[in-house]
């Protein structure tokens, strides 16, 4: 026995030690309705910041052999609105605007003139399922060069025929595996998978990979983030 004390002093010591734990009560802020939303929002923003820091332009998403592909008829279809927004493909163009040198309407044939890229990559849904699919298209970075996108811009935003909308950080837009995709499994996109043009981004979660593209803007300031982001999902959601 090293030292001795009396019960009154011992109680005081215990009280002091207990009080040291009061910082734990700060977590109670999450139970206060007024504070809960902004706290969770900043938690999500911190996660997005960390995600952007983890993103490496030169790091490729894993690719897979043909034998690993999920059969096309087992590739899930998730829509927020309709499976088929009934686009008139003959009249379809991609309207380009914002911080670009050559704004205007681009036809699918014009886009398909760019070098074609095919990749077997994993598609991960925020719900938790994942499939491996085959996607073909042109690198978005190539298209951004064609339209003369301002390299100092920070975002690419897209609008869709079903009123869906999304946005990308420029680093992800410039990633070699980020595609303006017009084929899946070596066949033109079907209506439920986003015909005639969709995004395929193996470094992002599924809801970032918008279908039925109708417009693309390059911008310095983000006015509209994305449909699901506006419901409370993560903005960056890089995989």
């Amino acid at each position, binding site marked *: 026995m090293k030292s001795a004390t009396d*019960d009154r002093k011992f109680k005081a010591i215990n009280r002091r030690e207990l009080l040291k734990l009061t910082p734990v009560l700060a977590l109670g802020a999450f139970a206060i309705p007024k504070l809960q939303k902004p706290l969770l929002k900043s938690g999500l923003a911190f996660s997005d910041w960390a995600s952007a820091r983890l993103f490496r332009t030169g790091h490729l998403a894993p690719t897979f052999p043909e034998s690993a592909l999920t059969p096309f008829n087992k590739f899930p279809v998730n829509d927020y609105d309709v499976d088929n927004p009934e686009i008139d493909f003959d009249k379809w163009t991609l309207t380009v605007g914002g911080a670009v040198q050559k704004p205007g309407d681009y036809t699918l044939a014009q886009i398909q003139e760019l070098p074609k890229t095919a990749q077997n990559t994993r598609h991960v849904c925020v*719900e938790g399922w994942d499939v491996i699919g085959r996607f073909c298209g042109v690198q978005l970075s190539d298209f951004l060069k064609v339209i003369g996108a301002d390299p100092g811009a920070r975002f690419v935003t897209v609008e869709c025929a079903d009123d869906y909308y999304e946005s990308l950080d420029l680093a992800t837009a410039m990633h070699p595996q980020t595609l303006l995709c017009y084929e899946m499994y070596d066949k033109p996109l079907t209506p439920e998978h986003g015909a005639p043009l969709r995004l395929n981004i193996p470094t992002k979660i599924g809801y970032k990979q918008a279908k039925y593209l109708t417009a693309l803007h390059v911008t310095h300031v983000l006015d509209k983030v994305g449909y699901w982001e506006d419901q409370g999902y993560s903005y960056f959601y890089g995989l």
Partner: protein
Amino acid sequence: MSTHAIAVENLKSGAVTTAVYEHPFVVRLCHWINTVALFVLVGSGLQIFRAFPSFGAKIPQKDLLHWPKAFAIGGWLGGALQWHLTFMWIYIATGILYIGYQIFSGNYKQVLFTRRDLPGVWPMVRHYFFFGQKPPVKEAYNPLQKHAYTSAIALGVLSVLTGLAVWKPVQLSWLAWMMGGFHLARLWHFLIMWAILAFVFGHLVMVILHGWDNFVSMFTGWKKNPEYVSE
């Protein structure tokens, strides 16, 4: 054992009891923050799981179990992700603080299960499960306790690693690869949660069995009438 013991004299009766300082401040702080964080992470994790309660294919989808919404946090997938992606940082931060403190303070010797503890395992099992005689208590934690706590810490580390693999299967593709890919990492993450919950269940049972003085010690650090300090 370096645990600091003192004699406490009752001023009225003159009776003397002993007390030991068993749980350093950082350990107690991390314990209680982690209790909250784990509660939120499990609750929100189960809500996330509800969005796709399966580990098979999406088509056709075979649900593993229907977890009731009442035992989940966040209300919907997006809300649950907000809770999960917020509290994971708190969980990771306290984890790093805890492990760092244990290493640098040397306090890990109280918790870490080592080969030295092996011979004491069987007598403790016999005592707990087969009404065997209680082995003499020499230190704060008996061999089985050390095993349980060491496993819990390992599970905590694994829960973070599997979680990171699920969250970043591309940027941390090596981590996902080590777990057999994204698909399996999600399963490991889920199973590790149940292993942690199994620990928590056993932990709570033991806390109830060991009584008030033991329970209070996780708040004040001091444990009155410890079994392992002889007069």
